[in-house]
């Protein structure tokens, strides 16, 4: 199942590697990825990615693991909100 994940992350060199290491732990590949530095915040970036996960439980684990990363301020699965047409901001 395809899940869309949004995260606020520290704008640091290693952050993308840390996020992709979590996906790699579950043997998941990233379908889409965008990392954009927030202009209004101090040293933070927005990360948006789409990954194909096996099931809901794996999706939940993935979000928990991303939130565990110290360079990730917050991460959320926004798939449903996006499908409902919401302009998602986290």
């Amino acid at each position, binding site marked *: 199942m395809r899940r869309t994940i949004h995260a606020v*992350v*520290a704008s640091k060199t*290693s952050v993308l*590697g*840390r996020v992709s*290491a979590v996906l790699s*732990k579950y043997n998941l590949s990233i379908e889409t990825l965008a990392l954009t530095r927030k202009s209004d915040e101090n040293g*933070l970036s927005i990360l948006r990615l789409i990954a194909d996960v096996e099931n809901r*439980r794996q999706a*939940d*684990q993935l979000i*928990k*693991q991303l*939130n*565990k*990363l*110290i*360079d*990730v*301020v*917050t991460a959320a699965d926004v798939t449903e909100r996006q499908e409902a047409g919401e302009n998602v901001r986290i």
Partner: protein
Amino acid sequence: MRVETKSGTETRSRTITGADILVRSILQEGVDVVFGYPGGAVLPVYDALYRKHVRHVLARHEQGAIHAAEGYARVSGKPGVVIATSGPGATNIVTGLMDACIDSLPLVVFTGQVATRVIGTDAFQEADVIGITAPATKHNFQVKSLTDLPRIVREAFYIAATGRPGPVLVDLPKDVCAMNVPTEPQETAMKLPGYHFTTKPESHRIQTLARAIEKAEKPVVLAGAGVLHAGASEQLRSFAEKHSLPVVSTLLGLGSFPASHPLFLGMGGMHGTYAANMAITECDLLLNIGSRFDDRLTGNLEKFAPEATIAHVDIDPVEIGKNVPADIPVLGDAAAVLERLESETGPSADKSKWLKHLKAYRQQHPLHYERSQERGCLSPQYVIERVAACAGDGAVVTTDVGQHQMWTAQYYRFERPDHWVTSGGLGTMGFGFPAAIGAQVAKPDETVVAIVGDGGFQMTLQELAVVRELNLPIKTIVLNNHALGMVRQWQEAFYEKRYAHSVPSVQPDFVQLAESYGIRGERAATEEEAEQVLTRAFRTPGPVLVDCRVRREANVFPMVAPGKGLKEMTGV
């Protein structure tokens, strides 16, 4: 020492180096000892340590240093500190990082790195330590500017020791440490907007759990290492007694509940007791406090606690629901949760029938073994029982990984918290002996016993030099079956006795080996010798190694074979 500056020559005392700032920051964290191994990229750090007279334990391999730091952390409750050089120094600590990560041990590890201007050029002894260690640490940092150094050190110690403890690595480019500055950088506050942990449980979760405990007729507590990390052993005992809750321990949770207590059922899992595994299988409420539900504990998940409401108390949200779905998830620290439960749980259901039932299991199927009838070799379980009798219940015990580890877990009978040091999640052979060094450094006045197998001991026995150098009175018990015992056991059980590379043709003489390091070596091959030698060893003030010749054919039982449910035990 003098240095050239633009204005001429001045004494170095008028400036300080990055390494001085590092050492000052480490000392501010209350560090009293570091474990390490020097090398090119950390020379400025070692120079600063030398000048500040910081206590440093020189391991003989970086893996020895990090396992010692793990042993130190486990028994002291304080972060173990490690210093290794760049490249191979750093890669040699990766096993220890992963071990500490999975077993939740607080470490702060400093690695040297090549100078910032050559990072990325495959310079001499360069390795991408941040990339390599990211999945093996709770967090890692590379210090790119001296200004950041004091803050990063503070953050590293804070992250390592709070929430679910774990290893934090700080990578130090040589030029940052060697840099001379006239004054220390200004202190800046920690900046960790992405670091959160929850210790206090939510009230509605406590209420749900308290009601479940009140009405459960066949409850069982699964006590994991989280109880020990939270210092909640006494609370657990009092709560279990109040509500007549039988307690099963995980491997790493041993000591969190006294082995001699009438409510204790023993260790659960692959080599757990019959009573423990049957209690998990038949219970109506499984209250897991601080265990990861590791696969060695659960066996086949579809057959795990099939009748039970599962309550899972953990400080790490990732662990809740990871392996076993939780009916009652409780995020929080074991001590905080038990404190709330203590006040919120009312009178609970009568469990006399359940306790009687479990008592019968314990009496009908206790752990058992046969004393060796062969000449010239001992039963390994007998050796563990004799070591326990000689060492007394105040001793700190470390083990390696394999059969001897399981026999120690089964037969040593741990009565106190924080006296048991073993590699659980990663199952790291070579862990036990250096971990004993760290434990003895942390507790110089306590008896420390390293119980190792002949296989794992040979992975890190170079650390004998450290034991001699510091005259650490560690009693090293080698259960020598001249084989990789657990590998051999699985080959016997699952590979039709094809013993592929599990029985080496050559072994060192461990007694002579110890003697060559200036450590007293003894050998025991009969029960009479074991009795004499072990008694003498524990009365000897300095380090002693005892080579115990044990039966190669001895196997660890009971056993739940891979893929089987907990009640499908063999060798009961």
